[in-house]
């Protein structure tokens, strides 16, 4: 961008290029929803959209945390296991008779603590995020079965209320409390990324860590912070998961980290860091949710088509990002 931008294209081409991936995801989402509505009559029911949110609330929260990590150019493989561990610990503590509030506090502390430790290992000892968070994933998953080999049901009053309370018309269109929690997390995260110093630091470090360091930005503090945030989001996701399933199961959410990474990438966040939006991540999660809904509605397609379609979409979006990147140069 050394020369002045020469405006030759039509007006629509002047959209900022960094918005392109997000807009492409939005277009895809609308197209998929359109296909659903045109093919299946019941699809146009607004409850279908609400159900996508209800079924993917925890995924949304975890993906928000992952967006922070990926924006700095890192990766967090531990989120699925940390969510499972949070659900497991809360189920276990509730079973042993602790009241709901302390359980909630303890469960919400586990994720950030683990994230903080992983961030420290990554920053101070310069070990690859991939390896550190892989170890974190093993640790959290191991803790799950260490607590119990079988799934623990939750019968606590607070949990069942949270799980079963329906906002809106219980017989018509409704959302669960989890959806509201997920929206709150999304709004807070979007605010932090866009309007606070931490958010700016995250983008700067993702863009170029060396430059960020030379500018005097707190590289270490920010890096540790994003892994802590990711841990916190995983913990909140785990709590929502336990609301959703009303149990703590040692094998739940296996492979969820891949879904989450796929959602973030489909949402237009670049894996090398520095570019992406929370809004894109929301769209990415919705795309995954709508794919699942479409496949459920179809009925004749088998579950493995979900994986193949997600893989194909990943490919298409990365190709798109790549093409935009080439044009940008």
């Amino acid at each position, binding site marked *: 961008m050394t020369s002045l931008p020469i405006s030759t294209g039509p007006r629509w081409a002047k959209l900022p290029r960094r918005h392109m991936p997000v807009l492409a995801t939005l277009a895809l989402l609308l197209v998929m929803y359109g296909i659903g509505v045109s093919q299946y009559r019941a699809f146009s029911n607004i409850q279908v959209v609400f159900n996508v949110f209800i079924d993917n609330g925890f995924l949304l929260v975890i993906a928000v945390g992952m967006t922070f990590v990926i924006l700095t*150019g890192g*990766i967090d493989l531990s989120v699925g296991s940390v969510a499972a561990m949070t659900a497991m610990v809360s189920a276990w503590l509730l079973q042993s008779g602790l009241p709901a509030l302390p359980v909630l506090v303890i469960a919400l502390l586990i994720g950030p603590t683990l994230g903080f430790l992983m961030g420290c*290992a990554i920053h*101070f*000892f*310069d*070990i*690859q995020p*991939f*390896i*550190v968070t*892989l*170890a*974190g994933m*093993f*640790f959290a*998953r*191991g*803790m*799950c*079965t*260490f607590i119990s*080999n079988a799934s623990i049901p939750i019968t606590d009053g607070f949990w069942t209320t949270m799980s079963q309370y329906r906002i809106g018309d219980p017989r018509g269109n409704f959302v669960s409390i989890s959806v509201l929690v997920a929206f709150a997390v999304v709004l807070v995260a979007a605010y932090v990324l866009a309007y606070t110093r931490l958010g700016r630091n995250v983008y700067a470090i993702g863009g*170029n*860590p*060396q430059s960020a*360091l030379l500018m005097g930005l707190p590289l270490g503090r920010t890096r540790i912070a994003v892994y802590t945030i990711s841990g916190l989001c995983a913990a909140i996701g785990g709590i929502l998961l336990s609301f959703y399933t009303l149990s703590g199961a*040692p*094998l739940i959410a296996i492979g969820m980290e*891949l879904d989450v*990474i*796929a959602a973030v*990438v489909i949402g237009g966040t670049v*894996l*090398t860091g520095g570019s992406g939006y929370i809004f894109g991540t929301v769209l990415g999660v919705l795309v995954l949710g709508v794919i699942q809904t479409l496949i459920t509605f179809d009925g004749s397609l*088998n*579950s*493995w*088509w*979900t*994986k*193949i379609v*997600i*893989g*194909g979409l*990943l*490919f298409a979006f*990365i*190709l798109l990002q*790549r093409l935009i990147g080439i044009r940008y140069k």
Partner: protein
Amino acid sequence: MSDAGHRFRTLLGHRLFWPVAVLVVMLAANTVYRPGFLAVEINNGHLYGTPIDILRLSAPLILVALGMTLVISTGGIDLSVGSTCAISGAIACLYISRAPDQNNLGTVLTALAMALGVALVLGAWNGVLVSVIGIQPIIATLILMVAGRGLAQLIAEGQIITINSGPYRAIGLGHLLTLPLAIFIALAAALLVAAFTRRTALGMIVESVGGNREASRLAGIRSGRVVFLVYVVSAACAAIAGFMMTANVSSADGNNTGLWVELDAILAVVIGGTSLAGGRFYLSGTIVGALIIQTLTTTVYAMNISPQTALLFKAVVVIAVCLIQAPAFRARFRRRRPGTPPPPQSSPQRQKEQVPA
């Protein structure tokens, strides 16, 4: 005296010292816990015993990790190996299960060739994505990791394909010269890779591409081709590992064959001293790393701990080995010279870009 001290320090500094030390400590702990651990006996002309089991079961991991070592040494990573294992195993088993005579050697060889061919195509796909289109390796292979599981299930139509084929089972459970055949296959692959990389210039070329792809290209190396090649080799290794895994149980399960083997393989490579940033690789270290992981798994099984809880131990070992090998950690604990902060740490990619080309 000083000579001995010097020699000790050289030994301590050897890159294989810590991995081997960890392996020896684990074996020793096992022997203390269960005195019969290292006993090997001959039964029906075959050797049996826990050490042999560890070797046999680590064969698929060694194979996958060999390919992974090459990929990682170019600065890449291959997450799709587990899915490749599942696909190749599913194709081989599907072909054999449909054949009229499952024990026919020709049928089995055709099945293996077909599955290997498909795996090579998958490897080429990864290679094209990374080297031609220029997608980040972790994402390029993530595509196949996610979609590949689906493809494997599609091939098997969601079923577990069971076969009853003597020659195929031999890949996993057969014996040769009193030892399991799988050990020889892994050994042969290791020697082949070692011969091609260390007896020819290929290894150096791979390392130079990992060190700086652009500079290597300017020096006359076809970097793109080298990168392409390592992904194909990795897929081929994964395919053979997939044959072993499915042959061990005489069935192919699209969901579970080779599940998480990519993570184990990456761990084995890292434990063996190969840096994830690329530019160096140690095949011997990788093999030791794979043996460490399998020994750990076997140990935990022998102690009657559930496989999932075994992950807890794996996490501890991984962190310990990585910390021991991390230069920043060593610098902090070896020479406690105050006021020498570790050198400014920047991501390797950025450093590479700054080399005037």
